[in-house]
C-alpha cells in the first residue's frame, strides 16, 4: 500500500493554512498579542519609574530644622512649605484629612537640632518626637509619608555614622550586561516556551482528532485502505509543525518584547545567543512539540468530543507548566543525564541550559532521543486507538 503519510500531512496543512481565521488566531495573534501585552506592561513599569524619578512631594512643615532643610536639598524629591502658626497647621491637617491636598504635614519640635544634639540616649528620657500626618487613603500622601520617613531615618543614622557600605553609586555589581540577559532569558523563557507550545498544540490537536470523531469524518477516513499508523503519523507530524509555528510566533513576540517588559532595560537582548544555541533550541522545541502533540492526540482520541478533550487536557497543561517552572527553581535543576529521560521536564531543563549558555551536549542528545521515542510510542498508541472501534465509535 502506498505511503499516505504525506497525503494526510497535506490535507491537515490545507485545512489549516487555507483557513485565514485559524492562521490568524493560532499563528499570528499569539505573537502579536504577547508582544503588545509585554510591551504595554513594560511601558507601564517604565513610566512608573520615570514618574518616581521626577516625583516631588510637598511637605507642609512646622518648625523646619535647618539640618533637615540641608539634607532635603541634597537630591531628595521633597519641597517644604513652612506653616506659620497653629491656625495654618490646623488648616493643613483639615485639607489633608479631606483629601483636598496631597502629601503630608510634618510637625517638628521648636529648636529640633539643638534638642537632638543635646539628647543623651543613656538618660532614658523620651527622644525629641517628629509628628508626620498623612492620609493613607490618598496614594500620593501615603508614598510621601514613606519617603519622608526614609529621609528622617537616614538623617537619624547619619547622626551616629561610623561606617559606610558601598559609598560610590556604581561599580560593585560585577555582573555584565550579557549576564543579565542570560539570567532573564534562562529564568523566564523555558517556562513561557512550554506554555506557548502547549497552547499551540491545544488550539489544533483536539479539533483535528476529537473534532473529526465528533463530526464523523474520521470514520470516512477509516473505511479507506490507509494504514492506521500512516494516519497517526501524518496527524502528529502535521499538527507538530503547526504547533511549532504557533510556539515560534509566541517565542518571537516574547523575545522582542522582553527588553520592554523588563522596564525598558536596553541591556537585555537575545543577541548574546549565537547560531549554535538557536539550532539546539530548535531541536529541543521540535522534539518537545512532537511529545506534546502525541500526548494531546491520544487524549483527544479517547474523548468523545472536543469539549471533553479540552477538559482532559487542561490538567495535563498545568503539569506541563509546573515542569516548565522547574527551570526557575535551582534546587530542581538536575544535570545528570538520567533526569533528562523525564518528558517535558527534560525540555524545560534543556531550554534553561541553552539560555544559560551552560549546554551539556549529552543531555541535549538524551532529551531529543527520549522525546522522539516518546513521540514514537505516542504514534503507536494512537495507531492502536484508530484501530479500536470502541475508542473511535464511542458515543
Amino acid at each position, binding site marked *: *500500500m*502506498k505511503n*499516505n503519510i504525506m*497525503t494526510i500531512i497535506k*490535507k491537515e496543512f*490545507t*485545512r489549516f493554512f487555507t*483557513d485565514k481565521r485559524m492562521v490568524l488566531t493560532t499563528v499570528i495573534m499569539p505573537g502579536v498579542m504577547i508582544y503588545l501585552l509585554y510591551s504595554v506592561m513594560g511601558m507601564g513599569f517604565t513610566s512608573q519609574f520615570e514618574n518616581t524619578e521626577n516625583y516631588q512631594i510637598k511637605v507642609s512643615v512646622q518648625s523646619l530644622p535647618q539640618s533637615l532643610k540641608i539634607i532635603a536639598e541634597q537630591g531628595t524629591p521633597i519641597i517644604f512649605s513652612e506653616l506659620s502658626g497653629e491656625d495654618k497647621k490646623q488648616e493643613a491637617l483639615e485639607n489633608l484629612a479631606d483629601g483636598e491636598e496631597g502629601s503630608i504635614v510634618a510637625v517638628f519640635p521648636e529648636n529640633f537640632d539643638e534638642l537632638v544634639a543635646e539628647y543623651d540616649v543613656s538618660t532614658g528620657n523620651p527622644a525629641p518626637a517628629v509628628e508626620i500626618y498623612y492620609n493613607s487613603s490618598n496614594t500620593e500622601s501615603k508614598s510621601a509619608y514613606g519617603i519622608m520617613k526614609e529621609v528622617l531615618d537616614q538623617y537619624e543614622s547619619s547622626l551616629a555614622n561610623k561606617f559606610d557600605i558601598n559609598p560610590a553609586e556604581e561599580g560593585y555589581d560585577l555582573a555584565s550586561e550579557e549576564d543579565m540577559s542570560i539570567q532573564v532569558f534562562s529564568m523566564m523563557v523555558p517556562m513561557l516556551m512550554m506554555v506557548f507550545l502547549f497552547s499551540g498544540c491545544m488550539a489544533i490537536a483536539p479539533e483535528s482528532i476529537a473534532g*473529526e470523531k465528533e*463530526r*464523523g*469524518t474520521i*470514520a*470516512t*477516513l*477509516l*473505511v*479507506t*485502505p*490507509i*494504514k492506521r499508523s500512516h494516519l497517526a503519523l501524518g496527524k502528529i507530524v502535521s499538527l507538530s509543525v503547526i504547533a511549532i509555528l504557533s510556539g515560534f510566533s509566541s517565542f518571537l513576540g516574547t523575545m522582542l518584547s522582553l527588553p520592554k517588559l523588563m522596564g525598558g532595560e536596553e541591556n537585555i537582548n537575545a543577541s548574546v545567543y549565537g547560531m549554535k544555541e538557536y539550532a539546539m533550541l530548535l531541536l529541543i522545541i521540535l522534539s518537545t512539540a512532537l511529545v506534546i502533540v502525541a500526548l494531546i492526540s491520544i487524549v483527544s482520541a479517547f474523548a468523545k468530543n472536543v469539549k471533553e478533550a479540552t477538559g482532559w487536557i487542561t490538567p495535563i497543561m498545568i503539569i506541563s507548566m509546573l515542569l516548565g517552572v522547574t527551570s526557575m527553581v535551582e534546587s530542581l535543576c538536575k544535570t545528570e543525564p538520567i533526569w533528562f529521560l523525564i518528558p517535558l521536564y527534560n525540555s524545560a531543563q534543556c531550554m534553561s541550559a541553552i539560555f544559560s549558555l551552560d549546554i551539556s551536549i549529552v543531555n541535549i542528545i538524551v532529551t531529543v532521543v527520549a522525546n522522539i521515542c516518546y513521540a514514537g510510542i505516542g504514534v503507536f498508541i494512537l495507531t492502536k486507538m484508530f484501530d479500536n*472501534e470502541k475508542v473511535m*465509535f464511542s458515543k
Partner: protein
Amino acid sequence: MKELLQVQNLKKTFKVSAKQQKIQGTKERLKVAVNHLSFTAYEGEVFGLLGSNGAGKTTTLRMMSALIVPDEGDVLVDGSSVVKNPNEVRSKIGFLTSELKLEEFFTPNYLFDFFAELHGVEKETARKRKQELFEKFQISQFAEVKVANLSTGMKQKVSLVISIVHNPSIIIFDEPTNGLDVLTAKVVTDFLLELKSQGKTIVVSTHIFSLIEKICDRVGIIIDGSMVVCDTLENITAEKCLEEKFFDIYAERAGESYEK
C-alpha cells in the same frame, strides 16, 4: 456465478451502557446486534438487506466494510478476509453510510482528489473519473463550493461519488436514499441500476420496500440480528408482495403483531 462476498456466521455483541439500560428498561448488559448471520452475494448481483431499525443491518455492513471487527465469523470479500486483511478489503469495496461524514471545510473537488490519493488512484484516472461522476451527479457547478454550503441532497451525492472514487467492484450502501428528496433519491436509484448494469456487486440495506423491489436480485430479511429469510426476490414475492411478506415474517418471528 462467482461468490464475490461471503458473510460467514457473523456475530457482534455490544455492551449496553447504564444509560441505555435505563432507556430501554432492561438489565441486560450485553446486546447481540448480529447473531450468527450468513449470506452470499454473487458477482454482478444486487443483494438487499431488509429489516427494521435496530435489526442489525448497519452493524452487518460495518463489519463487511472492515470498520468494526466481528466477535465471531468472517467476511470474505473477493477472497480477502475482513478479520485477517482488513486493509485489502477496504481497497476492494466502496462503502457509503449516513454515519460517514465529509469534512465541511473542503470542496467536493478537493475531497475527491484526497480520497483518490488515499485509494492510490492514478492522477489522470482520478481526473477522468471525477469529471464523469461530477457530470453525472451534477456536482460540477458546485465543485469548488465548500461542503458546508451544499444542500443535504448534494452532500449525499458527493458522499456517494467519493465512496466509489476508486471504482470498486463491490459496493456496500447503507440506506442510500435515506433523508433524500424524491429527485435526488431517483438519481441515486438510477445510479445503482447503472452500477448493476456495469456488473458491479452491490449490497444495499434499506427499509424501503420499493427500492428493494426495483433494484435487488436477492433479498435477506434480518430480524433481531438474525437472517430469517434469504432468497431471490422472485421466490420471496411469489405469493405476496414484499411488504406483506415482510410483515408476516416479522409478526411471526418477533412474536408480536405489527398491527398493534
